[in-house]
């Protein structure tokens, strides 16, 4: 006896398969894949803000950190910072000591005796305004976003306070505002930028260790700085598209 004909013939199978696969392909064409890598292309026109910090020039006065708190109403307690300064001390035996008491606002005291120090330097930290921001990628409601000028912002009226972005930021630049319950971070003082002013931390820096500018403008101070110094970003292996470039960045800095 011949076996019964299978209910689904090979032809039917391929037909259905083609429809499903083709359907998915067509549907995908309408909703392009917007992975962060593709979304992060540098715009050819308009401003594209970046930051330069010259570690050789930083004297650790902490004025940037305190100006930031004042300008942006950042909570005073030492657990909330949009901008802070770290002091790195590398001892003769290779031990690395990092300190940032109150984010450097009250200045620094060297805890290591001078004869034990191999070298010491200050590293100002702030949001890297990444072009492929891991924080923007993970936000479940899209409350945090990149502006066309490359500034990473948070819409506090939209943020649900899930803290996923705080976990995703490799640089520790975000905190939950204790009064608002939403996330808070550096805005590059966008309220000042729109008035043609510099961000507070840049304006106050007494040694001009901080350079701010448009990466799209070949004549900008920032591009001049980048051309004339050997600059690095922090944690380059994470491919976050950081736009905070340091001159004289030691490998100890993380």
């Amino acid at each position, binding site marked *: 006896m011949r076996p019964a004909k299978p209910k689904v013939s090979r032809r039917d199978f391929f037909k259905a398969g083609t429809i499903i696969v083709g359907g998915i392909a067509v549907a995908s064409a309408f909703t392009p894949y*917007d*992975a*962060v890598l593709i*979304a992060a292309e540098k715009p050819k026109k308009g401003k594209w803000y970046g930051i330069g910090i010259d570690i050789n020039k930083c004297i650790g006065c902490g004025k940037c950190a305190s100006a930031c708190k004042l300008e942006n109403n950042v909570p005073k*307690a*030492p*657990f*909330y*910072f949009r901008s*802070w300064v*770290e002091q790195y001390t590398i001892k003769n035996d290779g031990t*690395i*000591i*990092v*300190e*940032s008491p109150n*984010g450097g606002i009250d200045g620094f005291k060297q805890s290591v005796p001078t004869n034990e120090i191999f070298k010491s330097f200050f590293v100002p*930290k702030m949001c890297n305004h990444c072009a492929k921001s*891991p924080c923007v*990628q*993970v*936000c*479940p*409601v*899209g409350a945090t976003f990149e502006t066309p000028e490359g500034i990473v912002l948070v819409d506090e009226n*939209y*943020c*649900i*306070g*899930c*803290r*996923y972005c*705080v*976990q*995703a*930021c*490799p*640089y*520790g*630049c*975000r*905190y*939950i505002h*204790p*009064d*608002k*319950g*939403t*996330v808070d971070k550096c805005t590059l003082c966008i309220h000042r930028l729109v008035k043609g002013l510099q961000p507070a931390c840049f304006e106050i820096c007494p040694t001009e260790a901080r350079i701010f500018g448009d990466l799209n403008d070949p004549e900008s101070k920032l591009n001049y700085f980048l051309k004339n110094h050997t600059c690095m970003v922090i944690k380059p292996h*994470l491919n976050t598209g950081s736009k905070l470039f340091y001159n004289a960045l030691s490998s100890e800095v*993380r």
Partner: protein
Amino acid sequence: MEQHLQDLYEVLSKVDGYVYPNEIELNWSILIVLYPYITGLVAGAFILASLERIFKVHILKPTYGIALLTAFSFMLVATMPLISHLGKPFRAYEIMITPHSSSAMAIFGFVYLWYLMVVLLLEIWFDYRRDMIIWAQETTGVKRFLYRVLSLWTTDISPKAVALDNRIGYIVTVIGIPSAFLLHGYVGFIFGSIKANPWWSTVLMPVIFLFSAIVSGIALVMLIYILLTKVRKLKIDMECLDTIAKYLFYILIIDFVLEGLDQIHRIYEAEESFEVLHKLVFGKLFFTLFFMQGLFGTILPLLTLGTFQFYKPKEKIRKIIYLAISALILIGVFFMRWNVVIGGQLFSKSFYGYTSFKTGMIGSEGYLMAAVWLIVPFIILSFLLWLLPPWKKKEELPETQGL
């Protein structure tokens, strides 16, 4: 607020090494430990139920209904720790209305709803429809009304209709298995995809979460089954219990191997973060990782269940040991979640130091609140077992048996 700041100052005084100033506060607390734990229990319990239904392990029949109702009870509560942890809980619905397509967390709402509404609810409804109609005829008053509402006023219990129920129930379960895998694998992805955190960022994370979820869910149903038969003063079906233990043993082996592989890989590669994680594991996580998760939650159950595969002590002893083992596994998996969630936040992303975890008994993120979210599912389950007792289901006629 004041208390919160005081706690932070206390943590600050205990910081070991250097942490970024914003890292002193631990952002995901015990409630976020509970969230993967509870969803894991759901996925695991469902997989056990599907073993009976799809893979025809009919010996597990006594636990089928219990497993389904357990999964459902825990599923109802699964989002609560998450929502109550939000800084703005009343905006939680935004995840559903305006999901961000590149966010792993945004998918949560959909996966959750799919699993709760489509898979669990449908499966339970089709499984109980006939019984609810019969019970509505046998009872009076409020209970009768409840059954009628729950069965959506359907009355057809002809063999044809029941056969259709079974067929749909079967299809839903078939869809349910990959959904359960998706639900929990995805929870693992939330952690595994954070490249900033080397303790989380591993491609194995979703798989590890999935298998530990299955382990915990099976252990939970085992525990509930043993306790239920005790409460109902019935004789326990030892053959069923031995079979559950056998599956538990197999999946525990996979889970153990995967977690071991993850650690071995980490140790062998010894990347930039190795030192800070090494010190974390042997310091702040020593007790919860090596003792609670490793020894009590994994090694002891593995050895015991392994021994039972070729040497079985008397039923009475075996029953007590199964009870203890399932409790140990549940505790062990809880601490696995703890070690991932809390452990991943104890070290600084600068790799230069450690913060510490401090939470009180009271408050919306205290231990008491966490205990509430663990107890509520049991209250729901008790109610469901009263309303829809699986043991009172009428035997179906042979020709209407499932596919």
